[in-house]
């Protein structure tokens, strides 16, 4: 029985011996090396680019600028085709490439990139929410890129409204109104982004990229290159961490054009600093007005959120749709009005990031709950239990009802943190919840090949970026086929080999691909049953049956499975969430009032996963997410200067948690009620651990110190200033 067992990671041996091949570890014969050329500010008009000296450099094969690319410049993006291959006329963010050099060696490319002379004029930029909304500010995006959009003369990409009931008419004994800020943070996958492209026989192109989304990449490249989909092969070696940052195209189109231009393989390895300049989480300002009755029940939520995205739309519309949809959290809210805007700025394009807008809105709705509890003299856990939607309750009217016993998670978290037990001096506890709408529409396909000796090869388009999808899918196949786990191999990451999968995102793979693999195995089992009947051997073990039918040379059984959730045009998300990812986080902290430093004494996360197919994999992801959440809670934020340059660019100045930032004690608890849509009652997991970190820790800090902080991160300086009444600097 492999399901529910903490099997060792598939690909683990390769990862501890250094033989795992990431994109940067792949080297092709005759490969050229690419270096990008940037200008040193956020927003600039490009006056001229002189490539003569660079082109004459030793080993230089090609210097590409916008002028050498097809006109008009091909543009791309997951939703809007707005991002150019290289900057055209203007740079829109600090770090955007204006030229690319391809040379025989890394050193030659770097040297030649230094010789590209770019004359530019710095322009005023939009770097904040206030600037984006100021009609006197420059437009980040040219109106002609979205000609039919009534907002095209503003820096607003989209404004969305959602809600129910009548907020204006709602009565309340207490109204809590506050503004919350969530900073820009970067993914900081330890593997910087890396891209390889090579011409392929038959007029095609192959691209190697650490993507979570090889099929989207294939579709976009095919359109840009004017090639049939079948002529674009995207190979996606397991990413070295992704967290949403490797979901959508970055410089894949550039390397594809360079490979076709030079007729040779080309490789572009971004530095960590360049990677910082390409991906980040959407920062956010949220104004929340929440009405409560005297007994602590919520009367209404009235929330306005402004998400500051970067220079291109990327997936921002989806981020605001999903976060706004559940901006009220997992609570019973009689009346709700939520308005959200996605704003352009001259900054790094924001993209998908673990939690996808949820950590931002939970920072607001959970801090509001705490504020109300304090003012009403209520216990902070009790006020949550009083408002949490019960299992089966349609807390978003007309949509997927609450699909878990969420109060059970809260009670578990409260108990584990010792809620209500005496606290040492200088300490405080906090508890918070969060909920994310999982995958809505989309399809996953799998092909499973049962070989003549009873072993099986599973083909799945999922990307294993650390979450362990390969292991869990193997467990599903082994269980369904009744074969030992060691007899299964899972093939992923190659659009020429594996069938379509929408993407590896939104914690969808266990549910969607898990179901597809399960159904492919059921397809095989049905064929085996028929085979047994034909051979008059219904009682024979499978392996004997296979040997009898195929021996070593006459074939195998192929099963096909798919799982899809249909598009619903009238649904605000295009479809009902397949499940909700629910988390409860509880934290105990000790604050040093002399320095403002926060010591995490104990940190607990509770994940409602339906069924943990591999408990160790679930726990490692949930704890990992919690550690990541401690980053944006305690230390991480991208700081910009007046020219839109990242001031803390790189590992030295942008701190992420290390072993020394860990809580003294950390626990990940699971709730397993078998109530999910995935195989064996599973739900997706892996994002929850960071969705409620900030409000849980901040609530604990408030209990310890008496100060309420509504801006993140809770750096020692900020905490010290609040304690000592100095305000923000």
């Amino acid at each position: 029985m492999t399901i529910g067992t903490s099997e060792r990671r598939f690909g683990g041996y390769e990862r501890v011996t250094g033989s795992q091949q990431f994109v940067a570890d792949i080297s092709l014969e005759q490969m050229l090396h690419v270096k990008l050329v940037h200008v040193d500010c956020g927003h600039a008009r490009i006056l001229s680019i002189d490539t003569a000296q660079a082109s004459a450099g030793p080993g230089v094969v090609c210097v590409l600028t916008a002028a050498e690319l097809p006109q008009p410049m091909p543009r791309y993006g997951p939703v809007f085709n707005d991002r150019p291959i290289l900057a055209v006329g203007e740079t829109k963010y600090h770090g955007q490439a204006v030229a690319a050099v391809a040379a025989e060696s890394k050193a030659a490319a770097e040297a030649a990139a230094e010789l590209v002379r770019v004359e530019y004029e710095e322009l005023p930029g939009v770097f904040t929410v206030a600037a984006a909304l100021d009609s006197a500010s420059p437009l980040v995006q040219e109106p002609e890129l979205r000609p039919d959009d009534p907002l095209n003369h503003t820096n607003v990409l989209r404004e969305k409204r959602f809600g129910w009931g009548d907020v204006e008419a709602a009565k309340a004994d207490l109204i809590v109104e506050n503004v919350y800020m969530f900073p820009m943070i970067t993914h900081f996958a330890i593997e910087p982004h890396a891209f390889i492209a090579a011409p392929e026989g038959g007029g095609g192109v192959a691209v190697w990229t650490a993507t979570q989304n090889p099929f989207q990449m294939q579709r976009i490249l095919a359109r840009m290159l004017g090639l049939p989909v079948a002529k674009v092969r995207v190979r996606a070696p397991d990413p070295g961490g992704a967290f949403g940052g490797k979901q959508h195209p970055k410089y894949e189109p550039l390397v594809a054009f360079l490979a076709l231009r030079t007729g040779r393989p080309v490789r572009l390895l971004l530095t960590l600093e360049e990677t910082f300049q390409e991906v980040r989480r959407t920062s956010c300002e949220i104004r929340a007005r929440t009405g409560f009755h005297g007994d602590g029940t919520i009367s209404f939520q009235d929330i306005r959120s402004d998400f500051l995205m970067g220079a291109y739309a990327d997936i921002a519309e989806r981020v605001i749709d999903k976060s706004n949809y559940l901006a009220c959290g997992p609570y019973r809210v009689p009346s709700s009005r939520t308005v959200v805007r996605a704003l352009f700025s001259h900054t790094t394009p924001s993209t998908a990031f673990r939690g996808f807008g949820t950590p931002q809105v939970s920072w607001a709705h959970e801090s509001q709950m705490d504020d109300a509890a304090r003012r009403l003299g209520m216990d902070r856990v009790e006020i949550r239990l009083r408002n949490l939607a019960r299992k089966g309750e349609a807390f978003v009217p007309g949509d997927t009802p609450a699909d878990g016993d969420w109060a059970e998670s809260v009670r578990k978290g409260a108990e584990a943190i010792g809620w209500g037990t005496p606290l040492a001096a200088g300490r405080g506890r906090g508890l918070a919840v969060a909920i994310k709408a999982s995958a809505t529409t989309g399809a996953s396909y799998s092909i499973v090949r049962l070989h003549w000796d009873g072993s099986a090869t599973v083909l799945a388009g999922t990307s294993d970026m650390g979450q362990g999808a390969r292991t869990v899918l193997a467990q599903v196949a082994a269980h369904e086929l009744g074969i030992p786990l060691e007899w299964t191999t899972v093939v992923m990451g190659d659009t020429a080999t594996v069938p379509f999968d929408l993407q590896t995102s939104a914690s969808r793979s266990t549910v969607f691909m898990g179901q597809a693999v399960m159904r492919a195995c059921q397809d095989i089992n049905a064929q085996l049953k028929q085979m047994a009947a034909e051979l008059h051997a219904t009682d024979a073990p499978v392996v004997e049956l296979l040997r009898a039918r195929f021996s070593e040379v006459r074939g195998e059984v192929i099963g096909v499975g798919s799982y899809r959730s249909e598009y619903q045009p009238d649904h605000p998300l295009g479809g009902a969430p397949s499940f909700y990812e629910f988390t409860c986080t509880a934290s105990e902290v000790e604050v040093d009032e002399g320095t403002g430093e926060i010591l995490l004494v104990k940190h607990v996360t509770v994940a409602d996963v339906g069924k943990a197919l591999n408990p160790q994999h679930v726990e490692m992801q949930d704890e990992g997410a919690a550690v990541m959440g401690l980053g944006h809670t305690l230390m991480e934020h991208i700081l910009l200067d007046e020219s839109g340059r990242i001031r803390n660019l790189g590992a030295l100045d942008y701190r992420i948690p290390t072993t020394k930032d860990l809580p003294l004690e950390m626990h990940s608890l699971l709730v397993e009620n078998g109530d999910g849509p995935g195989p064996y009652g599973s739900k997706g997991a892996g994002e929850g651990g960071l969705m409620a970190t900030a409000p849980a820790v901040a609530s604990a800090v408030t209990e310890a110190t008496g100060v309420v902080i509504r801006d993140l991160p809770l750096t020692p300086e900020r905490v010290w200033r609040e304690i000592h009444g100095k305000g923000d600097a």
Partner: protein
Amino acid sequence: MRIHVTVNGSPRELEVAPNTTLLDHLRDDLHLTGTKECCDMGECGACTVLIDGRSVNSCLMLAVEADASEVTTIEGMARDGRLNALQDAFLAKGAVQCGFCIPGQVMAAQYLLQRNPHPTLAEVREGLSGNLCRCGGYVQICEAVLAASEFGR
């Protein structure tokens, strides 16, 4: 320039440019790509190797500086395809997620256990504080190091 180094137990005579880092030399010239490149400034620990048994960020060292020394990389940890106790503990404890930082973590842990065969949890946290893991698998990584130290007891 010509240098003489022992790489994972094999004596080698190598030609290197004077400005090549040890990291680039290992990855690009010797094709030992198990050692990873991330920050390239000695902050992340992904490129950790052992030089004469001491842990070093190979991005901060020139290849020529390794002359006459013994270099051990992640490829030198397993013997005849068999994982050493540390590598095995990383897998048993679920310390490996995406895996990109893991070679550096294993090398840093190897150095830690050489100096201090039976560290406390606090000593493990201190010893691995220079190795970033964005998957956040630190709890399991520290457990793995402690388990490997128990194994050697």
